[in-house]
């Protein structure tokens, strides 16, 4: 018989290729959170998240915006005295919550990522304007205007192309992708 998996184990399991130390090594010293440039926008500091995972507070962790606020700058990973790959753990948490489909209301991150991947799978390349559709609705009116102004500015300055590009070997590319995950069926 299989023992029921603890949350901490689940997270450990999906940190597939990470070569950092397991989070059980955490000293709770706070170096990560002291270093993090985005910490003040997080509900919980990275250190607290590790503590919560170890305490198997799954619901609380899922409800936190911390890992969606991670900028993936890896500064925590560099400094961690226990050599835990914290940034990677944040990715793992994102994956976990996407997979379980449970995350905080009003977050843009999940949709954005999903849309981003869909786009890549469909064209092989990324293209900013297409993405706007996914996040603009969640923006405040003021932000939307901002975004519009900026976009036009970019287009005029020739920095932003108006049409998306596609890669040539798209068919094979998509077969390749489907060998890994069945998401983003080509439209």
């Amino acid at each position, binding site marked *: 018989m299989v023992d029921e998996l603890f949350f901490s184990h689940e997270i450990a399991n*999906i940190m*597939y*290729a990470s*070569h950092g130390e397991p989070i059980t090594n955490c000293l709770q010293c706070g170096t990560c959170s002291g270093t993090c*440039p*985005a910490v*003040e*926008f997080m509900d919980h500091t990275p250190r607290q998240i590790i503590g919560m995972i170890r305490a198997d507070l799954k619901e609380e962790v899922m409800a936190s915006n911390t890992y*969606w*606020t991670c*900028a*993936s*700058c*890896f*500064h925590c*990973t*560099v400094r961690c005295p226990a050599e835990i*790959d914290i*940034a990677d753990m944040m*990715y793992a948490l*994102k*994956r976990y919550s*996407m997979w379980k489909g449970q995350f905080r209301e009003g*977050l*843009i*991150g*999940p949709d*954005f*990522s*999903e849309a*981003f*991947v869909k786009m*890549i799978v469909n064209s092989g*390349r*990324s*293209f*900013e304007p297409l*993405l706007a559709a996914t*996040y603009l609705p969640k923006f405040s009116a003021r*932000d939307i205007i901002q975004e519009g102004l*900026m976009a036009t*500015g*970019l287009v005029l*300055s020739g*920095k*932003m192309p108006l049409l998306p*590009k596609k*890669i*040539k*070997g798209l068919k*094979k*590319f998509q*077969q*390749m*992708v*489907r*060998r*890994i*995950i069945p*998401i983003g069926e080509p439209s």
Partner: protein
Amino acid sequence: MKQYAYYPGCSLESLGKSYNSSAMAVAGALDVELKEIEDWNCCGATAYFPVDELLAYTLTARNLAKAEKTGLDFVAPCSACYKNAYFTNSYLQRDADLAEHINYALEADNLHVSGTSKVRHLIEVFINDVGLEEIKNKVTHPLKGLRVAPYYGCQILRPRKDHEDVENPQYFEGLLSTIGAEPIEYASKTRCCGGSLIITNRKAALDMVRILLLDAINHNADVIATTCPMCNVNLEVYQNQVNREFGTQYSIPVMYFTQLMGLALGIVPGNLGIGKEQISGASMLAFAQNAKQERNL
């Protein structure tokens, strides 16, 4: 003539056009041939890992595989692409199981990756392969007295402990002095600009941008030099929003290191994509000009 498998990355086709043109121009001037990898795909920046790690690695692996075929080093001008490629490559070498999964997927595209090609960032190619000496010899318009804030950003450095000092690197400074500019020493040079948050968490990103601008400006930099299209856009395009958000009046030009190199090498601004920026880099030109006059005297 040194050759490299060049991976521009999506941004260099849109927001980072001027990075691409300046990179090409400078490479040309330094006898470096950047052969674009044929039919490359997006590396996924930071947006894949949240969805599927294996997919993320595979997408990067596809580009690496194509590079391996050529037997040339894989060179990326975008720090984010570079970091993804670097990780993927080193994991491929260390983790046979991962490699197997990825190669299974790559078969669909008749590709195979073994992690043998070296993954490198454009700036490091110029510095190590061309060499500062060589660059110095080719400088015609030294940017005398131009105070430049070298902005490394995060992705180009982390988290590679085995590599150069990740907390306090010096090679960018070295390059800038080589082209006659005056690099300023400021603490935030490796601090993250929030590039990956600019869409998903605007507030946080703007605050991170603010701190960088503030540190650079407090050290009276004339310009911030970047090595990554994400950083560049974040620091430049969003300055207005920062000002609106925090009531500041920042207006500091942000240039790609290749653009500054180009000027110093006497390449015409047009070919460096200068003139398209939102915050004019005209002052840069002035410097180059002065330099020229001085020489002519």
